[in-house]
């Protein structure tokens, strides 16, 4: 048991990401307002992006932009993979962030459209209006 607890405490960052993710999930399930649900969805998305970026981090490494010289000294710099942070998660998540904002735009457009039709963003009230008609 103690072994498991120390393992969990060592991965404090994962606990934090899971907590953020669950805050987003709670908002999606329990909140009745559509804009609140959209905010919850975005929080969920960013928690996953956070997790991806964290697995690329390396201790004692620098940012993935090469230091390079021109001319004859260029050959003296041998590039070692251990000196640079893993760039692959960055690439995947960079595009994911831009796609996330585009889909956020679509979600907000849907919310505006729902408001134009029903005059409210609260889910129970929309449900009432659908049941009446």
């Amino acid at each position: 048991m103690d072994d498991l607890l120390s393992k969990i405490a060592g991965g404090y960052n994962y606990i934090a990401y899971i907590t953020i993710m669950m805050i987003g999930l709670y908002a999606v399930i329990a909140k009745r307002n559509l804009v609140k649900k959209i905010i919850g969805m975005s929080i969920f998305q960013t928690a996953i992006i956070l997790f991806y970026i964290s697995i690329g981090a390396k201790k004692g490494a620098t940012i993935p932009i090469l230091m390079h010289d021109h001319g004859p000294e260029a050959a003296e710099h041998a590039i070692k993979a251990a000196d640079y942070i893993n760039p692959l998660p960055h690439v995947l998540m960079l595009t994911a962030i831009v796609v996330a904002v585009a889909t956020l735009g679509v979600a907000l457009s849907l919310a505006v459209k729902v408001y134009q039709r029903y005059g409210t963003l609260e889910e129970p009230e929309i449900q009432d209006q659908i049941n009446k008609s």
Partner: protein
Amino acid sequence: MKKLALILVLLCWGFLAFAAADFPRLGDPNSPASTHLSPYFIEKAYEDTATPNIVTAVLADYRSYDTMFETTVVFAAGVACFLLLRFYHFSEPPSHLYRHKPSGTVIQVPRGYRLKGEHTELEPIDRDWAPKDPIVEVASRILIPFIQIFALYVVVHGHHSPGGGFQGGVILGASLVLLAISRDLRTAQATLGESKNSILSALGVLIYVGVGAVTLALGSNFLDYAALAGLMGVDQVIARNLGILFVEVGVAVAVMATMFLIYRNVASAGALDEGL
């Protein structure tokens, strides 16, 4: 409902925390994610593409097919916003409002009547409460050109520093959004009309796909920029470097136009009147 959600979320938290106990520690250089594919990218990126920023090299060269469809998704999201919200007025509103620019007085003209002659001091507005702030307007007018120049720098300098098509495109779009917020949407409409905006949004994707089509026509793989070497009279490494620049420009144009397309439709709820 709320209690049930809370129990569900806590249960889920417990399972995920239990699963996370076996994950490698933060910053572990020997974690599986950092040992298989990424050493190749780090060691070979500069040799292959002459691009010091590895993220740009992987984004626009090694994984360019993936990035092409990400750009397409952004474009599709812009089109979806347009189709969801945009509508056209076919009937005249009950009254037209005009603001006298020097004094700030608002004039109401009922339906069926028109102002006689040309009035340069009167500007059409949609709501009489729309505020006008000269400080914000002048400050934004000074700021916007600098933001746009910085955005262009970010796009073309993405090979050597953080940045690239996505960031530069978003900053360019944000400068247009700033124009639309500080004045009104009509001013931004005069700068970049709706049809031009939509064409630019598609043009960005077309530039990206076009580069791929050219490499295909030159008898190489889709988006293999090394094939452009003969066309431009440079060696293969520099050709890949320039190919990255071309697709970054395409991405920047597509993202810029799409961001503004989404903003103008959401902010005016599809009417494209005054906006915020």
